């Protein structure tokens, strides 16, 4: 694993134009450092999901490059929907990445059990996705992303479809996981409040074509909890980020 603070991935002037002619990204440059929690914040359609897919290698940039200074990292990806296989139970869904890699069966069993316990689903290992609540499905999805012990965790608006109570709970659990495991997280969201609560750094993007409008550090100490959510400090950061976002939306230059 890379020592904290070293660059793990860099986007250099990345552009993406789809076949339809839509320019999703234009000149996006971004460095992500080992161990940090970065949010990409922007209105829907600003290309933040596209940027995430390009980092994951699921989409090829039409301009610019993605650089991995220390070689490719193992990646875990969490989609906006839980994206589970409905015919497989929780344990089988979580085991999928290990199964595809033809790993050792016994080790896989242990890894699966551990990661399921870590996301709080130990009692539901044999349940099928249709038997789970929205939050539990998302936990399963997160467990599957973590089971290969990836260095980089990419999350594409994972909590957008959940109710607020569940979302707050998962926010806290995600922060705890991030602190315990010391992974790097790139988190795409369109919620100012969520990004401030979770991130060490927020990258505000312009509407299509997506570029970096501003980068805002959130130096509030970790661990954070529900008290942080109601603090004056939190409100201040939210105002600062919201202002940057509305400037980005208005199309004002930096």
């Amino acid at each position, binding site marked *: 694993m890379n020592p904290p603070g070293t660059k793990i991935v860099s986007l250099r002037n990345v552009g993406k134009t789809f076949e339809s002619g839509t320019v999703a990204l234009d000149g996006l440059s971004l460095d992500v450092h080992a161990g940090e929690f970065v949010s990409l914040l922007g209105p829907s359609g600003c290309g933040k999901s596209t940027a995430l*897919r390009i980092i*994951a*290698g*699921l989409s090829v940039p039409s301009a610019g490059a993605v650089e991995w200074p220390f070689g490719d990292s193992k*990646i875990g*990806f969490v*989609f906006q*929907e839980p*994206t589970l*296989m*409905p*015919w*497989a139970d929780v344990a089988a869904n979580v085991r*999928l*990445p290990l*199964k*595809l*890699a033809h790993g050792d069966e016994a080790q896989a069993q242990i890894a699966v059990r551990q990661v399921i316990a870590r996301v709080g689903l130990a009692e539901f290992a044999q349940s*099928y*996705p*249709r038997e789970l609540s929205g939050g539990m499905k998302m936990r399963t999805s997160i467990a599957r992303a973590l089971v*290969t012990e990836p260095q980089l965790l990419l999350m594409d608006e994972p909590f957008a479809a959940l109710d607020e109570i569940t979302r707050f709970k998962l926010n806290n659990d995600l922060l705890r996981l991030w602190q315990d495991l010391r992974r790097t997280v790139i988190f795409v969201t369109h919620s100012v409040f969520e990004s401030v609560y979770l991130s060490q750094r927020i990258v505000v993007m312009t509407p299509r074509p997506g570029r970096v409008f501003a980068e805002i550090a959130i130096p509030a100490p970790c661990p954070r909890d529900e008290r942080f959510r109601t603090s004056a400090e939190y409100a201040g950061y939210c105002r600062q980020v919201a202002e940057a976002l509305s400037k980005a939306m208005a199309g004002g230059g930096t």
Partner: protein
Amino acid sequence: MNERWRRVASPLLTLAVLLLIWEAIVRFYTVPSYVLPAPSLVLTTLVADAGLLWSSLLVTLSITFEAFVLAALGGVGLAVAFSLWRPIERSLYPFAVILQVTPIVAIAPLLLIYLPQPLAVLACAWIVAFFPVLANTTLGLSSVDHNLLALFDLYKASRWQVLWNLKLPSALPQMLAGLRIAGGLSLIGAVVAEIAAGSAGAGSGLAYRIAESGYRLNIPRMFAALLLLSAAGVAIFFALSALSHLALRRWHESAVRRER
């Protein structure tokens, strides 16, 4: 429980009433049995000719079963080949459609010229039955959740891993629906081919019995054979529905019972 009882009882009651009316009309007007046999006569014929009809039923059923198995293998196999290699789909699919839309009654006499009779009958049944399996499985294989495909892509899954772990299981509900249709169609295909072959002689399946009884004006036996054919069709349908339910009951909406 009451609800379920009513669902079984209502059609049975309707059937009983209709049979009684039928029996009454035949007796009251003393309709000769070569015009319309009474239900009671059909039943006694069924018992009297049991040996003959039973062996014919077995002949028809074994053709149906063979055609069904070949249709399942052919339909699923072709659908998998289509999904793995697009050029195969482009070059073969139109012919599958042509085969499907051309009425089987028109193809059967030709097949009987070129193939030995048992093989021709089997080929007819297969032609009718394989298309719904192909069409449904193709639909299932191509409507896989694109995010799950991206996930398999992310973990560098091979084509075979994607096929085996993702595409086939997610196509299973449609595949089973196709098989359920194919079961009934195998029987229809076998019957049509047997009737077409009937005039050429040498048949011994149920459809041939119907044709033969027709020539001999043995109408009660025609009805008895027809009764056995529908019973066979219903049994096939229920067997395949049960199979489908067993395979999907843990996860698919169509098979899951919701409590309200």
